[in-house]
């Protein structure tokens, strides 16, 4: 048994760390560390810098402009970014669509779309969920009917993250009603500026705008935008989801948040003592810390198995459940630690240009908001109940 990284991996870790140190903008880091949503421009500047270094899509093969990172290198990069408070790479293009195009797309599609992801010419969003199709994704109804060189798309997508920023969307659409629902789904790329597309914001319970509804009315999509074969989209969608669910442990981010929570608890008072000395609080915090420490090992065990050539399977479901629940636990305890100040909701107090009264402690500005916003973590990317279905089927063979 050996927990250490190899010498090369350690060197890579140092390289990532110093790159982040030199490149990250203090203002953006502060936003990330305080849990404030970053702007499209923040993301784009960060993507650009990563791309100049060749790290925007490190896991891509070298031929497409990546670094051929293996799972451990990807892990190191993401953990260092998490500790440093770097913005998350917006995953829809480089992390989600790209693997599908590389595996199932035509040469023409690869040559056209992949470079544009790196340069930032396209901002992608993901058209999966529909009002009537959440966990039961295969029941989706948005239709695409072939007419000559085009598909005519009609229907509605929902929960579409950052659709307000996107100029392209990859969509699951129904091209057949024959056979099982899974057998009539296709995977298609749609220009968000096409006539007939309307995007409406969905404001979440914390008041923020991340997700949207998208309405399609007779939208004309060139047939060459179909990925792979017609009616085989479900296979591609599942392939994409396994990519979506990796890297959900978020250990470094959670560690950073725990450090911040500890600081808050040292400064807060209860019974004339620092809150961190309160036995009930200390007990809750220690349990989260132990859970996180265990998750760190569980995650490394999964990585080591993949590194060893085992296929990543339902283990990513275990990680997704644990990672989301632990982060929610931290957000929950952070909210509690603020006491009455948790009523405050002034997320703008953490952005530049805020003119209102100073919020103290600063973390209170968006702590409750963040707590409510992060209830999404056990719902998105396949709800944790769906993850348990996957574990039952693939690991327990029930």
């Amino acid at each position: 048994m050996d927990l250490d990284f190899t010498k090369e991996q350690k060197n890579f870790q140092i390289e990532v760390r110093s790159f982040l140190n030199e490149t990250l903008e203090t203002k953006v880091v502060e936003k990330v560390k305080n849990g404030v949503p970053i702007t499209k421009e923040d993301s784009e500047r960060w993507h650009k810098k990563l791309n100049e270094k060749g790290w925007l899509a490190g896991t891509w093969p070298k031929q497409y402009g990546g670094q051929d990172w293996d799972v451990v290198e990807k892990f190191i990069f993401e953990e260092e970014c998490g500790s440093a408070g770097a913005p998350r790479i917006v995953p829809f293009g480089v992390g989600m669509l790209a693997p599908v195009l590389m595996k199932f797309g035509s040469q023409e599609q690869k040559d056209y779309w992949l470079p544009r992801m790196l340069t930032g010419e396209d901002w992608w969003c993901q058209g999966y969920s529909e009002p009537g199709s959440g966990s039961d994704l295969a029941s989706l109804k948005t239709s695409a009917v072939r007419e000559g060189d085009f598909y005519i798309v009609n229907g509605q997508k929902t929960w579409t993250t950052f659709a307000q920023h996107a100029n392209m969307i990859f969509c699951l659409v129904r091209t057949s009603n024959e056979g099982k629902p899974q057998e009539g789904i296709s995977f298609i790329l749609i220009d968000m500026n096409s006539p007939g597309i309307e995007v409406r914001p969905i404001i979440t319970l914390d008041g923020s705008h991340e997700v949207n509804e998208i309405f399609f009315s007779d939208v004309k999509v060139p047939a060459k935008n179909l990925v792979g074969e017609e009616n085989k989209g479900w296979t591609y969608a599942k392939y994409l989801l396994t990519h979506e669910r990796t890297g959900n442990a978020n250990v470094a981010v959670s560690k950073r948040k725990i450090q911040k929570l500890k600081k808050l608890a040292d400064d807060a008072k209860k019974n004339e003592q620092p809150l961190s000395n309160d036995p009930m609080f200390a007990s809750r915090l220690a349990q989260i810390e132990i859970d996180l420490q265990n998750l760190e090992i569980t995650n490394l065990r999964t990585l080591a198995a993949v590194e060893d050539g085992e296929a990543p399977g339902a283990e990513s479901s275990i990680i997704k459940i644990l990672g989301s629940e632990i982060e929610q636990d931290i957000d929950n305890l952070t909210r509690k630690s603020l006491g009455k100040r948790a009523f405050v909701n002034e997320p703008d107090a953490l952005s530049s240009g805020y003119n209102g009264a100073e919020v103290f402690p600063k973390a209170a500005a968006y702590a409750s908001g963040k707590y409510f916003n992060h209830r999404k973590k056990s719902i998105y990317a396949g709800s944790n109940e769906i993850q348990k279905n996957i574990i039952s089927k693939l690991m327990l063979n029930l």
Partner: protein
Amino acid sequence: MDFKPSPERQILFDTLKKYFENEYSLTDRNISAHSDLGYSKKAWEAMRDLGILESLIDPEFDGFGGTALDISTVFEALGRGLVVEPFLEVGILAAKVLSRGNDYQKSLVKKILENDCLPILAHSETDTEYTKSFVETTLSKATDGSYTVSGIKRMVKHAAEATHFLVTCRENGDAFNEEGISIACIPTDRDGIKIDSFATIDGGRVSDLTFTNVNISSEELVGPLGKSYSIVSQAIDTGILAICSEALGIMERIKELTLEYLKTRKQFGVPIGKFQAIQHRMAQLLVEIEQARSSVINATIYFDDEAEREKTISAAKFSIGKIGTLVAEESIQMHGGMGMTWEYDLGHYAKRLVLIDHEFGDEDFHLQKYISL
């Protein structure tokens, strides 16, 4: 990064696993575990012949193992077998203490391997005090330079056949003080020792031992007078690693039994494992068991690191205590009435798993300890 055991340890684990599956019948185990002795001498002999004790003991004392990884590997296998024989008490606790003693006491470790000696650590004094330094048993010096030991030791497992008791005691200091603790190695036929023994819920006998002015010579002290806390502390930490690993083995076996049951037991015309209410309970158990395993791996990795050992050991014991009870309760629930019977294996595993939380500090104790470190 590599989490796989070395090939040697994997072979050891597989050999033991197979042995317990084929040769260590749970029916026989349950009879001997709840007998007057509390274990089977025949099984003890047979398992000794396999070299299990040697794998727990350092080469310096004629063993061939004794590292944290060896201990963890062997005890996971012992857990799978639900072995009730005194490997923890003799091979870990007593052997660790005696290996820090004088030449004679060190020779007793070798005698353990030769089956000439069965020493048992008698340390715990009150039922609810888990702090390792809690010792009130007195050590008094007589005018001729010898000593007497007086006090009560409680819940000492497998004491009946012991040849020696290793008794923690103190000449001075408060009950919780780490300073002042000595260890006396007392032959069990010495005058002044009373043994009250009880049956247990999970198998094996426990005893309350009363020592009344038991005479010992200064040669019979293990380690330095008044400064032997670290000896008993390290022995107990090793014991914690061992029973956490034992608990892992038990959990894995419970997982197998429960999965098998879910796939064969039919209600409403289908195996009950087809019901989502059951699937989600079982999936949650799998997630928790993986976390428990990670906690034990973490404790094993840091076991020889003085600065990290106690914290990772407490984190593991806490995780095992919390998850172990959950696994026991949930597996009984999923088995329905079958989980409630003496005849079926599950209940016996579940009992041991829950009671492991009562050994060397429970989940609350170790959470508090983790916080304090």
